[in-house]
C-alpha cells in the first residue's frame, strides 16, 4: 500500500503533505505535553514492535498472504495521537531506509495509514464499542475497516493522479484488502486478547476495557465527519456501477428496469440538481438517513436491555 515517488501528481501530494505534517506536528505536541520522559523510550520500542509486526504474514487463502498494518492495534494501546505519531515514524523510516514508499508520497502514505488507518480506525473502534459494548467485535470491525479505508484512500489518490481510473483501482484495491482486513482483524483481536490476559498490569491494555459514555458532542463530531467523507467520496461512488447494475447493463435490461422502479435518489443524484453538487448533496442525505436509522435502532435496543 506504500505509494512510491513519481506516481502522484503535485495537486494530490502537496495538500496531503501539508495536512499530514500538520496532523503529526500537532499530535506530537499534544502527547509531548501530557507524557513524562519515560514514555519516549517506551513508545519508541512499541514503534519498533509495530514495524516488526508489519513483517508478520498471515494466510489469506488462494496461496497468497497479507501482512499486518497495525494501525488499530497500536492506537488502542497508546491512543490515537500516539498511534498517528508511531505510524508516521514507521513510514518515514521505511521511506528512508527500505525504499518502501516515496518522499513526495510520504504525506499521502501518512494520511492513508496514519490518519485513516490509525486515527480513523480508532474512532471507529470507539464508536462501535460505544454502541455494541462488544470489544472483540468492535476491534475486528475497526481493524477490517481501517485496512479497507486506507486502501480506498490510496485508490482515490492514484486515480486523482490519473494513474488508474477509479473504476479499476477501487474494486481491485478494496477487493483484496477486504480479505486482508479479515486477517488484520483476527490478528489484532488475538494479540490484544493475549496482552490483556497475560500482561494484566500493563497500563495500556487496561485502557482498552475502560468504558466511557458517549457524549452528545461526540455524536455531532461523528456526524460531521461522516458528512465530510460522504461529500468527498460520493462523486466517486456514483461513477461506479454496482454489481447488479453492471450485470443489468451487460444483459441489456437496464432501461426496462429503470422505468419500472424509480428510486428517490437515482444514481446518488438528486433530480433537478446538476453534477457534483447534486452528488455531494445526495451523499449528505444518505449519511443523515443512515445515521438516523442507526440512532433509532440503538435507542430501541438500548431500551430493551
Amino acid at each position: 500500500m506504500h505509494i512510491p515517488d513519481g506516481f502522484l501528481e503535485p495537486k494530490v501530494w502537496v495538500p496531503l503533505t501539508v495536512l499530514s505534517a500538520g496532523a503529526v506536528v500537532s499530535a506530537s505536541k499534544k502527547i509531548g505535553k501530557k507524557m513524562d520522559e519515560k514514555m519516549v523510550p517506551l513508545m519508541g520500542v512499541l514503534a519498533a514492535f509495530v514495524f516488526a509486526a508489519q513483517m508478520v504474514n498471515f494466510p489469506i487463502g488462494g496461496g497468497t498472504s497479507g501482512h499486518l498494518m497495525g494501525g488499530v492495534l497500536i492506537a488502542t494501546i497508546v491512543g490515537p495521537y500516539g498511534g498517528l505519531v508511531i505510524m508516521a515514524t514507521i513510514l518515514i523510516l521505511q521511506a528512508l531506509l527500505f525504499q518502501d514508499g516515496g518522499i513526495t508520497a510520504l504525506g499521502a502514505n501518512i494520511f492513508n495509514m496514519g490518519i485513516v488507518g490509525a486515527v480513523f480506525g480508532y474512532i471507529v473502534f470507539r464508536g462501535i464499542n460505544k454502541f455494541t459494548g462488544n470489544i472483540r467485535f468492535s476491534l475486528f470491525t475497526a481493524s477490517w475497516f481501517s485496512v479497507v479505508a486506507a486502501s480506498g484512500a490510496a485508490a482515490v489518490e492514484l486515480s486523482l493522479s490519473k494513474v488508474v481510473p477509479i473504476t479499476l483501482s477501487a474494486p481491485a484495491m478494496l477487493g483484496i484488502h477486504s480479505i486482508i482486513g479479515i486477517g488484520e482483524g483476527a490478528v489484532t483481536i488475538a494479540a490484544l486478547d493475549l496482552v490483556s490476559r497475560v500482561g494484566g498490569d500493563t497500563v495500556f491494555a487496561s485502557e482498552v476495557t475502560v468504558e466511557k459514555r458517549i457524549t452528545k458532542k461526540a455524536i455531532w463530531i461523528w456526524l460531521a465527519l461522516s458528512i465530510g467523507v460522504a461529500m468527498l467520496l460520493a462523486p466517486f461512488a456514483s461513477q461506479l456501477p454496482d454489481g447488479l447494475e453492471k450485470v443489468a447493463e451487460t444483459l441489456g435490461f437496464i432501461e426496462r428496469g429503470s422505468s419500472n422502479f424509480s428510486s428517490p435518489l437515482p444514481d446518488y443524484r438528486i433530480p433537478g440538481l446538476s453534477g457534483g453538487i447534486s452528488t455531494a448533496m445526495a451523499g449528505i442525505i444518505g449519511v443523515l438517513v443512515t445515521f438516523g436509522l442507526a440512532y433509532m435502532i440503538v435507542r430501541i435496543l438500548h431500551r430493551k436491555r
Partner: protein
Amino acid sequence: MLDPTYIDSYSSINAPYQRLDARVKIIVTLAFVIIMAISVDDRPLRVIPFSLFIVFIAAISRLSPMVLLRRTLPALPFFLFASLVLGFSKGSEAAVAAFLKAFLSVLSVIVLVSTTRFSNLLKGLEGLKVPQLLVSLISFVYRYLFIIADEYGHIKIARESRNFGGSKRWQWKTIGHSVGTLFLHSYERGDRVYSAMVARGYEGNIRTLGTQGIVRADIIFVSISIIYLLSAGLISWKLL
C-alpha cells in the same frame, strides 16, 4: 537487511559530500525530489539534468555505482509493475517518466542515508524543526527494530518447531498470540531500556560526538545545488 551498520556504511569515507552538514544534505535531497516531481511531469527527457545531478553527488561522495544500483534493487519490481499499470492509462511516455522519477528519488535517498551517520541525520532533522518526539521515536525504532525483528524470528522458530499448522482459525489465533507475545517482550524491554538510559544520563534529547556546524562550503553547496535544480526545472520545462 537486518544489520544496522549496513545502512550508513559509507558515512566514514573521507569525501567532500560526507563532510557536509546533515541539514544541508537533507535540504538538497528534499529540493531534488520535490523539484523533480513537479517539473518532470510526464516527459521522460526532462529527467536528464536531474540524473546528471545525482551522478555528480555520487561522484563527490565516492560511492561506487554498483553499490548504489544494488541497493535500489528491492524497490525496482514494484516500480516496474506500477509503471506498467500507468502505461495502460496514460501512455508509455508517462510510464517511463514515472519510473525514472521513482528510481532517481530512491537513488537520492540512498545516497543521503548511506553517506550520513544515522545519528547526524537525526540531529539534522532536529535542526530542521522536525518535532523532538518524532526524532526520538525514529532513533529508537532504528535501534530496536533489528533486535525486535530478531526476537520475532525466535518466536517464529519456536512456533514452527511446535508443529504450527492446522485450520485457518487456529493459525490466526497463534499468529495473533505471537504478535501479542512480541508486544509484551517489547514493552518490558522498553522499561529496561529506559532505566539503563537514565543511568547513563538521558534527559530526553539526542547527543552526538563531533559537533556539526554550517561552514562556508555548506552554504556554497546548498546555494549552487538549489540554483542548479531550479534552473534545470525551469529550462527543461521550456525546452523539452
